[in-house]
């Protein structure tokens, strides 16, 4: 299987002259090296860093929301300010924080897990990042340019029509998501091509690490889920910009159409966030139980099944819109069905822990808390899939509690497990386990203190998205507890940040494989060299590294010695960097503002810029240089690396 022998037809080992406007840059340090990087590891770090920035902003918004709701009839935030806060909190967490965090990990670790040199299209990868960064900056600039979006993260029509919402907050939302979606799409395509065609020799699909598998499923979800959203966004942009009437009720528009289009995207989006988290958990639990994932094929298949079913449940977000008993029955049943593979996954994770040697690292603590919290969120999910009960719970704080259990306590805690797990690989240093565990014991209990009482508040009749509530109907205590929880969780978040900074500055050297882990990313140095693998790894089994280290534990005998093969005599080709991804991102940013301010000359100019940069990108040439690695026996594949 010669899938990923890096054989680029470049004659000379050193950099080639460029055909484009610029020679492809070759900085290795400094800001310019980051602005022009096409290295998946650097881009992964940029994704993770940026998503933490946005998460910090979303945390401030959440904190203000909870302060406002601490007591009834509070006046800290005006209704308008409150609407902007929860809208931006939701938009940020979904589009700018949790989803990019998963994509960031994928950027960094998918190539390393499958033994590849980089993603298939390094510049496209950089483009995805710069569009994400530009889209996030664009959305946040709304606070300084007339007010942030305020119609909720699902922006139901006709609240977004020009007559109902004349400010340009809604335009920021629509245009920001439209342009940002391009970045997500190209990244998804890149991941699919990479995973399908660049796996190491011997790595059959049934040997691919689960995180990578889940990213493959996720990438397909992105490709099928984003187009309906794009259509809906374009319709509203056209309504607001050119006076079309898709969603104008006075002219016979159908606001309910937006809900269908949004949730055909929106429910798969839930799995776009959660499946990578499942993948992280499926790496962390086996490593710290020192056992292979229990029921690997079942876990993979249930992930695929969840991905498929994710497109068949969207109307469970619309049980109260009056679709009728037949439709509600159909979508209730599909939603129940999606609970089955989710349950199966949880059972298999438990089966992985069972009979293992559980190492209580901070990462494993977060993974265990994920199992606990996600199970609770799954149970309330089944409850909400019951349409008659949903009629009470829909749009109440019960729903708020539910999706924070699955998104916050589920996906985000899984990514924190992933952060503690992979931090040594990314930085070469260990995070402090004592600070980590201390932070955990604030963060997760704080999270439950915030969100558990919200189930009660919802059942007691508190609708979501209200900046105040009536005193005397039993809502004071759950809200006060919830607000108290934010302080507890905040301490945990601060300790997490402290630990990251401490780890980067003072962390002890991690070595290649601090956790005695199972997959290929742990076979290279920490942080990995620019070219990833000195040798092309050859995979003979699932858990490729573990089998190399402890073949007798799996086979009872040693497997053949050859665990890697040399690259071409020319060495490993490392492409030059490129300015064009950044320039394209900036051109799309100009396009976004021009469309927002209805300056169609600038719209035209910015589109011409995009076209020009695409052209120049194509003619830029290969550039780069060859790393003279590949002699048999010279790499980090020796067992000493794990000692």
């Amino acid at each position, binding site marked *: 299987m010669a899938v990923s022998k890096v054989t680029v037809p470049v004659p000379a080992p050193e950099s080639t002259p460029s055909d484009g406007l610029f020679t492809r840059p070759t900085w290795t340090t400094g800001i310019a090296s980051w602005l022009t990087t096409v290295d998946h590891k650097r881009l992964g770090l940029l994704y993770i860093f940026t998503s933490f920035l946005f998460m910090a902003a979303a945390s401030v918004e959440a904190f203000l929301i909870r302060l406002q709701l601490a007591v009834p009839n509070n006046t800290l935030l005006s209704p308008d300010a409150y609407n902007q806060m929860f809208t931006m909190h939701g938009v940020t967490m979904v589009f700018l924080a949790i989803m990019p965090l998963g994509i960031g990990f994928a950027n960094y670790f998918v190539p390393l897990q499958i033994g590849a040199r980089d993603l298939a299209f390094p510049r496209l990868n950089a483009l995805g990042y710069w569009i994400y960064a530009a889209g996030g900056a664009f959305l946040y600039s709304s606070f300084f340019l007339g007010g942030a979006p305020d119609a909720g993260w699902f922006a139901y029509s*006709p609240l977004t029509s020009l007559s109902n919402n004349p400010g340009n907050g809604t335009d920021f939302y629509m245009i920001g998501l439209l342009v940002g979606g391009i970045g997500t799409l190209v990244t998804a395509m890149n991941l699919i091509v990479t995973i399908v065609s660049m796996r190491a020799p011997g790595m059959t699909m049934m040997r691919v690490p689960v995180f990578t598998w889940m990213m493959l499923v996720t990438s397909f979800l992105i490709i099928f889920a984003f187009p309906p959203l794009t259509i809906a966004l374009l319709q509203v942009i056209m309504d607001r910009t050119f006076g079309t009437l898709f969603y104008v009720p006075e002219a016979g528009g159908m606001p309910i159409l937006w809900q269908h289009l949004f949730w055909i995207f929106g429910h798969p989006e839930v799995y776009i966030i959660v499946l990578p988290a499942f993948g992280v958990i499926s790496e962390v639990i086996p490593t710290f*139980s020192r056992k292979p994932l229990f029921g690997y094929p079942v876990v993979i298949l249930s992930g695929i099944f969840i991905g498929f079913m994710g497109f068949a449940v969207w109307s469970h977000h619309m049980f109260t819109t009056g679709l009728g008993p037949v439709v509600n029955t159909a979508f209730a049943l599909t939603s129940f069905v999606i609970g089955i593979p989710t349950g199966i996954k949880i059972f298999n994770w438990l089966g992985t822990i069972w009979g293992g040697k559980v190492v209580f690292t901070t990462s494993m603590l977060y993974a265990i808390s994920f199992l606990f919290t996600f199970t609770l969120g799954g149970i309330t999910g089944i409850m909400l899939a019951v349409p*008659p009960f949903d009629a009470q719970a829909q749009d109440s704080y019960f729903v708020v509690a539910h999706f924070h259990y699955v998104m916050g306590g589920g996906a985000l805690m899984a990514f924190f497990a992933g952060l503690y797990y992979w931090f040594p690989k990314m930085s070469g240093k260990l995070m402090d386990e004592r600070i980590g565990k201390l932070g955990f014991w604030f963060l997760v209990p704080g999270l439950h203190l915030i969100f558990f009482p919200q189930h009660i508040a919802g059942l007691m009749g508190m609708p979501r998205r209200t900046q105040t509530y009536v005193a005397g109907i039993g809502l004071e205590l759950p809200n006060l507890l919830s607000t108290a929880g934010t302080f507890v969780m905040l301490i945990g978040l601060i300790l997490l940040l402290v630990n990251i900074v401490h780890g980067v500055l003072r962390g002890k050297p991690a070595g290649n494989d601090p956790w005695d882990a199972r997959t290929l990313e742990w076979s290279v140095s920490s942080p990995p060299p620019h070219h990833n693998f000195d040798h092309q790894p050859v995979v003979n089994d699932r858990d490729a590294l573990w089998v190399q280290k402890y073949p007798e534990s799996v086979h009872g005998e040693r497997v053949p010695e050859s665990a890697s093969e040399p690259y071409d005599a020319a060495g490993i080709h490392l492409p030059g960097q490129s300015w064009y991804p950044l320039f394209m991102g900036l051109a799309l940013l100009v396009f976004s503002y021009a469309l927002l301010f209805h300056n169609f000359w600038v719209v035209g100019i910015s589109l011409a810029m995009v076209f020009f940069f695409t052209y120049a990108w194509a003619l830029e040439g290969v550039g780069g240089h060859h790393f003279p690695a590949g002699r048999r026996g010279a790499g980090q594949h020796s067992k000493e690396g794990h000692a």
Partner: protein
Amino acid sequence: MHVRRWLQRGLAIAASVPLIAACEFSGPQSALDPAGPVAQAQRDLFVWTLWLSVPVMVGVFGVLLYSVLRFRAKNAEDERAIPHQTHGNFKLEIAWTIIPVILVILVAVPTVRTIFSTEQRVEAGPDDLAVHATGYQWWFKFDYLDHGFTTANELIIPVGTRVVVSLDSADVLHSFWVPNLAGKRDMIPNNDNQVWFVADAPGTYYGQCAELCLGAHAYMRFRVIAMEQPDYDRWIASFQNAAAQPVSADPLVERGRALVAQKGCVACHAIDGYRPGTEVGNPDFPSLTNFGLRTTVGAAIADNTPENLAAWLRDPQAMKPGNYMPTLWRADDPNREDEIEAIVAYLLSLGRDGQASGQLTLGGIHGGQ
């Protein structure tokens, strides 16, 4: 000695938890405190799923807790030990596929039954009360289809009668939600919707808009007041008599009647029988007909007392930020308090001069408050 005392206290507290929980979860806006068959069926399904979740939680959390404790690495050497590398177990996979399937079937059967018993569209028959509810930013309009009159923010219904509410919106999305009586149903422009329910006992049930509608969304409240049939009949009669509003003997009331025209109130607000032969108001604004019979002001955000009504007229934005009611007096207007007093007297007299005056028995607030 100490231990036993603490144990006794602990048991006493533990035993009182269900009691505390039971009264804490009751209330005029609680979905766990149903006062009619629809809300009851919805609550029963919730309780059923809650019971089913108990074995799931016990099983999953029990196994989780047991396995992380039982199989924990006890020391550094243990952390390097290699346990048996099991890859899976086919029988177990089958078993834990079947278990959730069974659980899901146990949820699905009563779910489908309840969907068809509570969400089926119905035609309002002669024994039903048919109401058309329209959501506006940020109040509810109720048209009594069989009686031909309109009121706002308080839906008066007879006990034990099926109330069939057709739902519409005049602007953005709203949602009609009275947790004690029925789960919510959205009010969507260009989209006929319906909700129906029955109140089993007289009482006042709180409702609230449950779909973001910006501005004063948090204050978009309403009430459903269920009355015994005789009270309800008197209430209906008072609306049918509203067309023949008598001139009051109280000069303050008559001054108020003049002022609601001078200050422009009746440009928006309808008042049936304002003056014989004069129709006032605009159907897209809350009707003030028989306002004296209302229990609340400002779309159910404050009790309808003279003080609250005066405060509302003085500064509507202070009571309900974002609403469309204009402030009618400048703060330094010397006539402000006099005029407010007169308008309050007039508005509170509406509906109270006729037969219904003082005879209506309003049910107490549901949940004993």
